[in-house]
C-alpha cells in the first residue's frame, strides 16, 4: 500500500454531498504515502439506476472508466462502495466474451477485464501499522459496511458477506473499540432517499438504533450513500419515532484522520448534519 500509486476514482457523490469523504481520503492517503492520481475526466458509473434499467448500460458506463484507468496503467481505487461495486462488476462481466464484444462495440474499442479495482477501505487496511498520533481510546464504533462493499462475494472477493472484519480491524488498530453487531451489511436504502424517503427512514432507524442500543458511540461507514442516509435524516427520524438518536456517522477515513492527528475541521467533520463534535470532545478527541 504505502508508496503505491492508484488511479483515483472519487465518484460523483464525493464532489457533492460527500466532500468530506474526498477530503479526508486524500489527507490520510497523503500521510500514509498512498499516491492518488485522479482519473482525468472520469464519468459517472451509472450507479444502480443505469444497471437496473439496462444491464448493458450498467456495464458500459463503468467500463468507460476502466478504459481510462487502463491507459494510466494503474490499479483503480475508489472510496465509494457503489462505484467500486459497479467497476468491479463491470470488470467481472467483461470476462464473458459476448459481453466484452458488445461493450467494445459501444465504447468503440476493447476493454479488458484485467484492470484491478480495490475499494479504498481495502487499500488502507493492507498495512495496519499506522503512525498514530492520537489513539481513539474509549471510542466505541459500530462499523457499518452496507451492501455493496461485500455483496456478492462471488464477484467482489473482498470480505465476509455477513460479518466482514476489514473495517473492524482498521478501527481497532486506531485504538478504538469495534463492537460486534448483526446489521453490518444490512441495506440502508441506498439511492432511494429522494424517491422514497419513508423507506430510507425506516431502514436507517433500524440500523442506527441497534448500534446505539448495543453501546456504540458512533457508526463508521465506507460509502457516501450509507453515510448520508444514516446522517442526514436523523432529525426527521427522531421526529417520526419520538426518540433521540444523535448518533454521529463518520467516514472511516475521518476516524483514521483523527488518529493520524488531523483536526476535525481539516477532516470536514463540521459538514455532518448530526454533529459529532460533542462526542469527540467528550472522548477527549475534539
Amino acid at each position, binding site marked *: 500500500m504505502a508508496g503505491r500509486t492508484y488511479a483515483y476514482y472519487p465518484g460523483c457523490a464525493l464532489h457533492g454531498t460527500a466532500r468530506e469523504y474526498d477530503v479526508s481520503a486524500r489527507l490520510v492517503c497523503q500521510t500514509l504515502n498512498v499516491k492518488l492520481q485522479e482519473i482525468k475526466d472520469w464519468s459517472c458509473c451509472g450507479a444502480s439506476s443505469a444497471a437496473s434499467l439496462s444491464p448493458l448500460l450498467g456495464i458500459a458506463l463503468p467500463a468507460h472508466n476502466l478504459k481510462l484507468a487502463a491507459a494510466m496503467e494503474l490499479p483503480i481505487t475508489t472510496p465509494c462502495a457503489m462505484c467500486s461495486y459497479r467497476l468491479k462488476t463491470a470488470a467481472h462481466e467483461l470476462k464473458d466474451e459476448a459481453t466484452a464484444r458488445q461493450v467494445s462495440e459501444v465504447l468503440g474499442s476493447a476493454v479488458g477485464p484485467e484492470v484491478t479495482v480495490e475499494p479504498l477501505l481495502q487499500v488502507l487496511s493492507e498495512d495496519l501499522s499506522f503512525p498514530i498520533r492520537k489513539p481513539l481510546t474509549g471510542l466505541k464504533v459500530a462499523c457499518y459496511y452496507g451492501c455493496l462493499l461485500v455483496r456478492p462475494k462471488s464477484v467482489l472477493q473482498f470480505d*465476509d458477506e*455477513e*460479518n466482514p472484519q476489514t473495517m473492524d480491524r482498521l478501527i481497532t488498530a486506531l485504538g478504538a473499540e469495534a463492537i*460486534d*453487531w*448483526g*446489521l453490518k451489511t444490512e441495506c440502508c436504502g441506498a439511492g432511494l432517499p429522494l424517491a422514497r424517503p419513508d423507506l430510507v427512514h425506516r431502514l436507517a432507524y433500524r440500523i442506527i438504533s*441497534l448500534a446505539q*442500543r*448495543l453501546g456504540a458511540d458512533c457508526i463508521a461507514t465506507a460509502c457516501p450513500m450509507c453515510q448520508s442516509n444514516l446522517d442526514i435524516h436523523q432529525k426527521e427520524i427522531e421526529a417520526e419515532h419520538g426518540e433521540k438518536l444523535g448518533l454521529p456517522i463518520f467516514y472511516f477515513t475521518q476516524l483514521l484522520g483523527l488518529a493520524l492527528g488531523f483536526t476535525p475541521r481539516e477532516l470536514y467533520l463540521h459538514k455532518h448534519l448530526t454533529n459529532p463534535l460533542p462526542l469527540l470532545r467528550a472522548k477527549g478527541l475534539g
Partner: protein
Amino acid sequence: MARIGVFVCHCGSNIAGTVNIAQVMAAAQTMPLVTFVADNKYSCSEIGQTAIREAILKQKLERVVIAACSPQMHEATFRKTVAQAGLNPYLLEIANIREHCSWVHSNDKAAATKKAIELVKMAVAKVARHEALFTKEIGLTKKALVIGGGISGIQAALDMANAGYPVILVEREPTIGGRMAQLDKTFPTLDCSSCILTPKMVEVAQHPNITLLTYAEVKSVRGFVGNFEVEILQRARKVDASKCTSCGICWQKCPEKIPAEFNLGLGPRAAIYTPFPQAVPNIPSIDLAHCRYIKYQEFVARGEEGKKPPQCRICERLCPPQAIDWEQSDQVLVEKVGAIVVATGYQTFDHTRYGEFGAGRYPDVITGIQLERLLSASGPTEGEVVRPSDGTHPKTVVFVSCVGSRDERMGRAYCSNVCCMYMAKQAILLKEHDPEVQSYIFYIDIRAGGKGYEEFIRRAQEEARAIYLRGRISHIYQDGKKLIVRGEDSLLGRPVEIAADLVVLATGIEPSAGAKELAQSLNISYDAHGFMVEAHPKLRPVESRTEGIFLAGTAIAPNDIPGCVAQGSAAAVKALAVLSRPSLVSDPMVAIVDPLRCTGCFACQRACAFNAIDSQVTRDGKTIAVVNESLCKGCGLCVSACRGVAMNLKGFSQQQLLAEVNALWR
C-alpha cells in the same frame, strides 16, 4: 457342431409393441447352426420356462439364445431353466432386445427390429463358441462384523448373535449407543431414549456371541464374501479393562477439564472419562490429547528447556484396583469374517457455515442435538433448559428448520427426514418443562409421513401451542439479551420478526466423518455426500453393491429410529443368509491365463483392482501370472491390460467377442 435354439420373448407388449417378432424369428431361422426358433409371450413365466425346457429336450438343443430383457433381470432365472433341462447353465446367451432395443427405439419400429435381429445374430455367433463352465464350492467364515455401534449397528449385531452366529461389533467412540444415547425422549411416542436404548447396550455387552471392540476402528478390509480379512485398530485406553471396577474416582478427581463432546460443549468432562454414566463398556479412557501426564511425557521426550508441565498421575494414584496402565499401546487385530454390516451413522451439519445465523458467535443460538442434551435429565444441566449465555430460562424459543438441508447453497439438496419431527417433539418437551415457553417453528414443509407422525405434529400445535410459521429464516442477530429472528410468514406474505430468548437450529444429517474413506477401504459405493449406496434403492435397500457387505441406518440416508432398527434387522437377515450357507459357490466367469502366451510382464497384476493375480513358476522356470479364482470378480481389466493376448475371461473370451463383431459384418 452345436444345435442352437433361439427363443424370442414378447415381454407382453414391452418388446412386441416395438419389435416385429415374426421378422426376428424369420431372420433367426437363417442364422448358422440355428435349428429351432420359437417365441414366448413371457419367457420368464412358468409357462415360458416350461416351453424352453421342453424344446431343449425335444429338439436336442445344445446351446440356447434367449432374446428378451436385460441379463441383469433374468440371466440367473434362465440359467436355472436350461440347467433343469440338463444343459450346462453357461451354454446360454441373452440378447437384450428390451432395454437396449424396444425401450430406447420405441419411435422407430423398423430400426428397432433391425437392431433386434443384429443383437440375436451376435448372440448366436457368441453362444456357438461357449464352453461349459463349472462352479466351485468355497468355504466361508461363519462370523459377522458390524461397523458402528449406534442403534442400527446394535440391532444388527443382536439379531445375528441371537441367531447363533458370532459377531464382532467395532465402535470408534469409547462407548456404543451412537447419537440415540444423546437424545432425551423420542418421537412419536415420547418414550425416554436411554430407557429403551440402555437395555440393548447392556445386552450387547453381555451377549456370549458378541465381541465388543470400542475405541476401535477398521483399518483395512481384504477378501470377498464369506472370506473377508479385517484389520482392526484397537486404540489404547490406558486403562486395564480387566481390573477397572468403574468406580469413577478417576474421572471425578482428574484436574484437567475440557468441553464434553457428548454434551456438545455444553458441559465439561475430564481427560480421563466415560462419555456418559450409562456408557457401555463403562471403562474410562484417557484422552491422550489432553492428559497432563501424557503432555509431560511428550515435553520430556522433546528434550525442551524451560518449566516442565506437572506430572499429575492423580488417576493412577487414586485408582483403587490400580487399573491405570501407561504402557498400554494401540493394537492391530486381524479377524476373519464372512459378512459385514456397515452402520456408521451420521453427524449433524456444521451450522457455523451460515453467516446469516451468526456463524456460531451467538451463544444462545444452539442446535437441535444441543437442546436434546439440555432437555435430558442426565444432561449437563440435569434437564433444566437454560440459555448458555446467562443461565436464564428461555420463554420465547424459535426453531429454524432445514439448516444444512434442502439448501443447494450449502451443497445439500436433500431433506434430513427427522428434523420436522424432532422440532415438534422438542416444542412439546419445552412446554412440559416450562408451561410459559412459547415456541415458534419456522418450516418450509412439514414432513410427517410416518405412523402416528401427523398426529404428533397436531399435538405440538394444539397441546404445546407451538406456532408454525411457513418460511425460511433469513437473519438472526443479537439485540441486547434478545436474538432477533427475521423470517417471512409466507402464508400471509408478510415479513415477521421475533425477539427470541433461544434459537434452535435444526441442523441436518450428514454421513459421519470418515464415511467415504471407510467405504473406499470396503470397496463399496457412496454418493457425493458420503452416504452409502444401496444395490437397488427399492428392492435391495440394505445391500451394498459389493457382495457380502450390508448397510443399515443413517449411513445410507437420514432416517429415524424406527427406520434404523428395521434396517438393522433387515441387514442382519441378509448377512445371515450368507453365513447360514454351508458353502459358497464361486462364479466361473473369471479370468484365465494362457500359460504359453504369458510373458510374465504382470501388466495384469497392476491393472487388477481385487488383488486377484498371483505369480507362479512354471516347470521350465518361467514366472507367469495366475488368477486366484476366488478373488477374481470377472471385471476384465486384466484382459485389456494384457498385450500378449494371454488373458481371457471365461464366457467372454476374445474369440467369442470377435465372433460377435464378425457376425455384425456378415
